């Protein structure tokens, strides 16, 4: 395996390690969810699209975890970090671990995440950490395509048949409670914001909901009116789905320790 991390730019820092997990675990778990669709997408094209997006996300995860491994400095590899943590050590948001359910859910989850992801990477590009900024600059080009794909499908389903409309509306309603967590600032994130490394996600919120609602309007869908939201993922407290994802994700490494592809 090659190394994408520029040695001289590495900042040794415990908070940075945890912050990297926060970013990368979103892509890892969403990538795993999309990977479940390999050979199971509703049509060949959407199957290929979802798995291609998954591949992009995994590629991004590798860069983040290679960096995290360097920061840990104890010989941990990208594979160790991806496969050998316990549930509470994963810091992804609850949104990305929600099941595929049907195509409307898959698209709604993707759309709600992509819009955030694009806003997030646009800010991360400006990070004082040059390794993070390089990963963001690379990833953002890919995430623009993801966002186009999911936005396009939200409009097609919303403004499509009566059935597709009601299914995507239900998916948006059910996943809405998980959106607010995207803007929660954790302690490691706060520490990194102070150093000019992390993105202050709380500042993205207004713009996010405006963008989401504009698309929903065009798709003849309604944004749910909700006061109470779910959170926990960023501090390691996950929904019941997480254990099942990890048993799939980790099976090979747990069964055949240190196996390589």
């Amino acid at each position, binding site marked *: *395996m*090659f190394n994408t991390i520029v040695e001289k730019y590495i900042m040794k820092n415990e908070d940075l390690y945890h912050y990297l997990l926060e970013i990368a675990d979103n892509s890892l778990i969403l990538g795993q969810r999309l990977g479940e669709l390999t050979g199971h997408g509703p049509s060949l094209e*959407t199957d290929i699209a979802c798995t291609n997006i998954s591949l*992009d996300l995994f590629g991004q995860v590798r*860069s983040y975890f290679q960096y995290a491994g360097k920061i840990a400095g104890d010989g941990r590899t990208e594979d160790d970090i991806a496969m050998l943590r316990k549930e509470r050590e994963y810091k992804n948001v609850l949104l990305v671990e929600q099941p595929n359910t049907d195509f409307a859910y898959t698209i709604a989850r993707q759309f709600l995440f992509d819009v955030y992801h694009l806003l997030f990477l646009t800010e991360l590009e400006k990070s004082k950490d040059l390794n993070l900024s390089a990963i963001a600059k690379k990833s953002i*080009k890919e995430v623009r395509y993801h966002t*186009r794909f999911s936005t396009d499908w939200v409009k097609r389903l919303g403004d499509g048949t009566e059935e597709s409309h009601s299914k995507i509306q239900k998916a948006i309603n059910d996943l809405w409670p998980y959106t607010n967590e995207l803007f929660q600032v954790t302690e490691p994130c706060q520490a990194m914001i102070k150093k000019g490394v992390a993105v202050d996600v709380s500042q993205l919120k207004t713009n996010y909901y405006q963008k989401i609602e504009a698309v929903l309007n065009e798709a003849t869908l309604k944004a749910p009116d909700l006061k109470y939201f779910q959170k926990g993922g960023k501090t390691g407290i996950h929904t019941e789905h997480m254990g099942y994802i990890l048993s799939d994700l980790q099976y090979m490494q747990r069964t055949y320790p240190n196996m390589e592809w």
Partner: protein
Amino acid sequence: MTLTTNPHIDKDLVPILEQVSDPEIPVLSIMDMGVVRSAIVEGKKVAVEITPTYSGCPAMDVIGDDIKAALKAEGYDATIDLILHPAWTTDWITPRGRKALEDYGIAAPLEAEADKAVLLKGEQIVKCPQCGSTRTKLVSQFGSTACKAQFKCMDCEEPFDYFKCLK
């Protein structure tokens, strides 16, 4: 910006690196693809920097191994680093590379504006690499690899890949 437009590649290495092809698109050399960002000789050692087209591109490991093997055959010992910045863009595909793509049956990337019009508004601009018609239709925004979209020609009715613009 000098790195973006003129990667530093030692002259002696150019013919060797030109022999290494993209494993997904065998007619295209990695030099024409623009993924080699620097190659510097020091005695019998060579330090090569390559950059991925897409983060998850599975071809990068193979490309790295192929570069090592090609240089080894010429007596060089190579180390390969994967760099992410500056990020690869389809602008780095050379005119020769674009022609190789077209000859192989893959439509070369359009400029950013035209690319958007094609992928989002369904405009008929992409030229069919088989018959040259622009009566072409987007089938899927993602094709056989992450870097391509799937198209169909409505005149000769052949399906083909379009290499998406990445800026």
